[in-house]
């Protein structure tokens, strides 16, 4: 072109980012405290990471750790649920409690003038929850309603089925939100037992930072949580995973009424602490994002779906890699084949070192954007705490990503992302199951027979014995 229009300018030299340094101390009661200072806005955040999550639940108590977390904000020995809600809103604060497979997390963030009172509320809900029977019933009812919404969403359901198919009765197999049957059976006393036993200072870390000095942060920690005492009982332990050997297969949940078919391809891979984690993150980055291979093949080239993505979560035990999309029932076979072929392309047509420059930049860019906010810095530090990584690994993360080369990515993909993958489809099976069965090992589960409470995924199957007996840890 020569119409006088300016040509694309070159980028200027890059500028370095500063990551606030984390300082840590352990209180006399065993509580580890990680503090940082970041002063650009009048905001302070704190996260308490309790080292016991859903992975430690017994099969028949699926949903217990989530219920404990949900109930923390629903009343203490001093305040009713309504009073806690009124207090948080009056402070303009955010106070949340939730449970993942690996840990439970209670977090608070508030403007500087509101932080002291907000942090005192965190202390109160962690240490003195009331677990009133009527609140247990309320959370149970709400959880059951939420479950019916989840089950009506094919993408959400496919994800739950993929986890169960991959892990069966091993930790991470059961749904964190429980099932209708397990939720119905959870007793108030078990909720209190779980809290008393596992919410404890010697198995917890507080990350706190923002618009304050680290000394002020330690003073807040000591002032509120310094008098917290650990029980004599042993700490939470998740048994070694007994993950079933993977094999290539297709699990279809037949739901003719769902508007579209959800596809999730899953494979169990590596834990966060694995030395291959950085290679896994880069392999995942080659696949996901708008410019990732999966979205390019499924959306951009073929218009099969509005979006397609992959995920490699960070977990203590080997994590489930997933590749997901949502398609028309009539194109489910094509989408399945394209998805599997795209994963295989990491081996057949591996990304070169030059291709990796941009994919690695997406990881590093996402990392820096993640720590743009106070909550983001706290979460990044909390992740390091959760996986027992040294805190000085946080600023090293961009360097670890930079060091991944093409052969490491190809090796990771060949080992984890090609063979023995489980394909989960939730949709109108009459439109695609027969076609898939011609070439693949297909199992069809009628939608009304699906039981996520069963490691075998269907009702009528006798559950395997629980992996963690409550008494085995006492």
């Amino acid at each position: 072109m020569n119409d006088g229009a300016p040509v694309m300018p070159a980028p200027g030299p890059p500028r370095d980012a500063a990551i606030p340094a984390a300082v840590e101390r352990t209180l006399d009661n065993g509580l580890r405290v990680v503090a940082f200072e970041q002063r650009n806005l009048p905001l302070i955040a704190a996260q308490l990471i309790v080292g016991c999550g859903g992975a430690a639940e017994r099969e028949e108590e699926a949903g217990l750790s989530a219920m404990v977390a949900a109930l923390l904000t629903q009343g203490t020995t001093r305040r009713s649920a309504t009073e806690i809600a009124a207090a948080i809103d009056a402070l303009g604060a955010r106070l949340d409690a939730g449970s993942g497979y690996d840990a439970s997390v209670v977090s608070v963030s508030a403007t500087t003038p509101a932080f002291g009172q907000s942090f005192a509320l965190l202390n109160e809900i962690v240490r003195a929850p009331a677990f009133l029977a009527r609140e247990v019933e309320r959370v149970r009812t709400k959880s059951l309603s939420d479950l019916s919404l989840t089950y009506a969403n094919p993408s959400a359901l496919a994800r739950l089925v993929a986890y169960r198919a991959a892990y069966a009765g091993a930790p991470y197999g059961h749904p964190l939100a429980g099932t209708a049957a397990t939720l119905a059976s959870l007793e108030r006393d078990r909720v209190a037992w779980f809290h008393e036993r596992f919410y404890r200072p010697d198995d917890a870390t507080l990350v706190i930072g923002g618009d304050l000095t680290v000394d002020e942060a330690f003073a807040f920690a000591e002032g509120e949580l310094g008098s917290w005492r650990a029980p004599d009982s042993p700490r939470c332990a998740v048994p070694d995973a007994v993950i079933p050997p993977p094999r290539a297969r297709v699990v279809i949940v037949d739901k003719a009424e769902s508007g579209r078919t959800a596809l999730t391809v899953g494979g169990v891979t590596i834990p966060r602490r694995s030395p291959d984690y950085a290679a896994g993150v880069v392999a995942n980055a080659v696949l996901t994002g708008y410019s990732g291979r999966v979205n390019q093949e499924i959306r951009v080239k073929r218009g099969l779906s509005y979006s397609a993505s992959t995920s490699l979560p960070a977990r203590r035990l080997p994590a489930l890699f997933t590749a997901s999309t949502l398609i028309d029932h009539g194109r489910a076979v094509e989408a399945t084949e394209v998805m599997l072929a795209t994963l295989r392309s990491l081996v057949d047509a591996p990304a070169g070192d030059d291709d990796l420059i941009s994919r690695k930049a997406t990881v590093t860019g996402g990392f820096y954007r993640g720590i743009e906010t106070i909550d983001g810095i706290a979460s990044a530090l909390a992740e390091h705490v959760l996986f027992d990584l040294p805190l000085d690994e946080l600023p090293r993360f961009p360097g670890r990503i930079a060091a991944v080369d093409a052969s490491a990515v190809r090796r990771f993909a060949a080992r984890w992302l090609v063979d023995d993958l489980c394909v989960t489809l939730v949709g109108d099976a009459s439109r695609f199951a027969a076609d898939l069965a011609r070439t693949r090992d297909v199992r069809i589960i009628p939608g009304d027979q699906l039981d996520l409470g069963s490691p075998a995924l269907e009702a009528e199957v006798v559950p395997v014995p629980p992996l963690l007996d409550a008494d085995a840890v006492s």
Partner: protein
Amino acid sequence: MTALPTISASAIHVSPFLYVDRTLANGLRAIVIPDRRVPSAAINVAYRVGGKDDPAGRSGFAHLFEHLMFKGTSRTAPETIDRLTEDVGGFNNAFTTEDITNYYEVIPSNHLERLLWAEADRLASLTVNEANFATEREVVIGEYDQRILAEPYGLLDELVNREAYRVHPYRRGVIGSPAELNAAALDDVVAFHATYYRPDNAVVVVAGDCDVEETFGWIERYFGRIPTPSSPIPRVRVVEPPQTQERSFTHRAANAPLPALEEAYHIPEAAHPDAPALEVLEAVLGAGRSSRLYTTLVYERQLVTSAWASADLRQQPGLFGLRITCARGIALADARWALHEEVERVCSEPPSELELERVRTQIASALVRARQTNNGVAMALARATTERGDPAVVNTDLERYLAVSGADVQRVARTYLRVENRTAIEYLPA
């Protein structure tokens, strides 16, 4: 009962946005706000065109067009914007509302000039061919299927707009209909770009790690040369007549697991003096777990699993929506009765000073949080300029909220939450 902790909203220091606002000779408005803390910058380019401006018989077109803006120009290949952002560790996206289309990028700051060039390039010389037009239309219909058909209650927003408005184009929504999307042709694309994508219909905002004068220099260099057509920009002048009778509709869907209801009331435009009181009313009813709807309907009476209030303030008169999803085993009529009791309560007595102080603190805290990211800052300025006509309102919003009294809240509730001004959509399991 333990004493309620309190702080005063006025104790929260919300620093003003210190931006520089200039208009180029060709009518392009440019706003720059530097923050050199992290080496990253955000660009927002907002155009005053949205779903309400869709051509006749082409509902969903403005949104389809948004997708086509990623399909290359006379100088660049399709998806160039993705290459220039994602591949260097940034991201980009865009959204279309009833009133505006906003494109944004977040990039390492050493790429700022290059992305300003790319935004100017697609404003000046978009090219779309039959092949990528057809592919992208499939993608948009896929988005319709995913967001509207597959999502439980996905059609509810569409139904509310369709029934609450009788003549105003807001009735068509933004996503449009697959039939009308399929009717669109390449000629429509060319005409739409020529009509709405012009410098005097756009605002460019840059927030983050930049030098103000250098950035204005780049904006002048790349955008300043784009000519402005002499023709006027067509504007929607249709006025929705006042609603005089309640409207009620029932929709059944196989993927609606629990009965849901939205009741929507006509309210004035975003720049109207009643807007702050309507937002405070929204917060009194629906913000947080101590809000009235949550406390009464979700928590105490357990009639619904979620309750939501929204003052959907638009460039032209919008809607105040109240939405509930029944708890399992609860009849919609019972939940609806309780919802109406809450509406009557807020009409019959003003909220207490304690309740208002709670809302003020929530709003002030939210304003601080919204300043955490460069893109949040840029988007706030872009939206204020295009939807409310003036970026300066971002610095006076807090004052306006703090000035809302209990009597103001009661007055707007009485003025707008009237039965004859209401459109109700029941969304029931099939």
